[in-house]
């Protein structure tokens, strides 16, 4: 288990991805694109996926919002790229359970994502952290790949 103070959480991980988001922008061509928002805080995200057989071939996101929602989406794109849709979906479910406090999550599997656990203490922010992941799961569903 890692323990980060809020300051560490922000400074070490969140702000890195917030300032320099990975895979940010439109992805063209794509197989599926899905836009979702969190009306409670106004955060918006659009996720683009191009499949490569059963795998996530390429993924990108667009959006605006707080650092947690943007950083989480950025980390997500790094993490699921190249995974099978099934594994990516399972990872998303793990993250959701972790944020609901139902699962600890394995540091080896999670890597950077472990830092999101710092958000569990701020239930209102959990929706921010999950916006990208929920959009991904819906995108999978829409594509019929899941």
């Amino acid at each position, binding site marked *: 288990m890692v323990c980060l103070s809020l300051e560490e959480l*922000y400074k070490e991980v969140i*702000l890195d991805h917030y300032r320099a988001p990975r895979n940010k922008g439109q992805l063209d061509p794509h197989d599926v694109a899905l836009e979702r928002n969190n009306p*409670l805080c*106004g955060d918006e995200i659009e996720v683009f996926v191009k499949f490569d057989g059963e795998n996530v071939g390429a993924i990108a996101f667009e959006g605006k*919002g*707080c*650092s947690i929602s943007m950083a989480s989406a950025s980390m997500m794109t790094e993490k699921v790229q190249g995974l099978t849709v099934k594994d990516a979906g399972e990872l998303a479910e793990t993250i959701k359970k972790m944020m609901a406090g139902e699962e600890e999550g394995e540091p080896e599997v999670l890597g950077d994502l472990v830092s999101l656990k710092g958000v569990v203490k*701020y239930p209102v*922010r959990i929706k921010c952290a999950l916006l990208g992941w929920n959009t991904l799961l819906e995108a999978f569903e829409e594509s019929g790949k899941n």
Partner: protein
Amino acid sequence: MSLDVESLRKDFPIFETQVHGKPLIYLDSASSSQKPRQVVDRMVRFYETEYANVHRGVYDLSERATAAYEGARAACARFVGARDPRSIIFTRGTTEGINLVRFTWARANVKAGDEILVTEMEHHSNLVPWQLLAQEVGASLRHLPVDDEGLLRIDLLDEYITERTKVVAVSLMSNVLGTINPVRALADAAHAAGARIVVDAAQAAPHIPIDVNELDVDFLAYSSHKMLGPTGAGALYGRLDLLEEMPPFHGGGEMIREVFPDHSTWAEVPHKFEAGTPNIAQAVGMGAAVEYLEGLGMGNVRAHEKEMVDYGISKLEEAGAKVYGPKDISIRGGVASFNLDEVHPHDMATILDQEGLCIRAGHHCAQPLMRVLGVPATARASFYVYNTPDEIDALVGALDKAKGWFA
């Protein structure tokens, strides 16, 4: 005479708690205020020495409980200048008060093709009930615009209030902009057109003196929990003649005169609108909050908040924040919504929380106004009787720190 803030803070036990090891700095009273010992103690004493159900008991304990409950009604009437306690209906809060008007007076009087005038700055609680009513009866909604300074465009009233207007629904003070609206002018225009005016005083009641007769309003709703009182209580003022002719709201005990198998007749106003066992202890607590505020003097409360918001706005602007709403503090309550370019409001609130500072971030239940302002969310600091300029300094200090993280 002004408020002795240092000494009245001692009435609020919560300021002895710590948040993340830091003293609590509570700048979210527009959402809900803290409670003085006097209010909580009154309810404890009520439960411990006077408790029984009201109105129906023949025994002494029930008489005492009824006297406490009806005494609170008189206090809530006096607090908004209503001459007759019967014009006060106890509710759970402002939201229930407005919905009560929707389900009773409005459903009996608003018809297909009629118009309901709201404003662009309404809280969801004074907008969504009217949307639901409009959908139900086939009426339509119009939205009085807000100008760049955060003021209602009352110069457009002639255009927005027509002979089809049946209801004008407006807040006396905005929970986002702090604007204190010229409700009397809206009331006059509404009445001239044969419409009724429903006033959301959730923000105004805790902060500025109110007189329903001077404002000449038909309905006015306010909440206990924002004015030092308990949760679960509120008051709806209604003009007696309107209350008398209105159909009842909930059916149940207490609101009836005679019940037959297939129909019933109704009790007198206000009981007609208070079905079932009411929120007795909460009404008593709300009465105690009224007395506490009367003790401070609403004029003094208002003066203190003017100073606070004046200082707050200037400090926030110095810190580089964009502050929304009117700059003229004579028409502005103690609310400062703002944004910093560098830090998203949600990040800001999370980071400030580490310093023991409670501020609000989000749409403040005013999504349509957020769209007018062109922002997804704002941060908001709001001030009440227990806040001090030092706390504003602490806020600005913490904002600088947050900017540092994001720099």
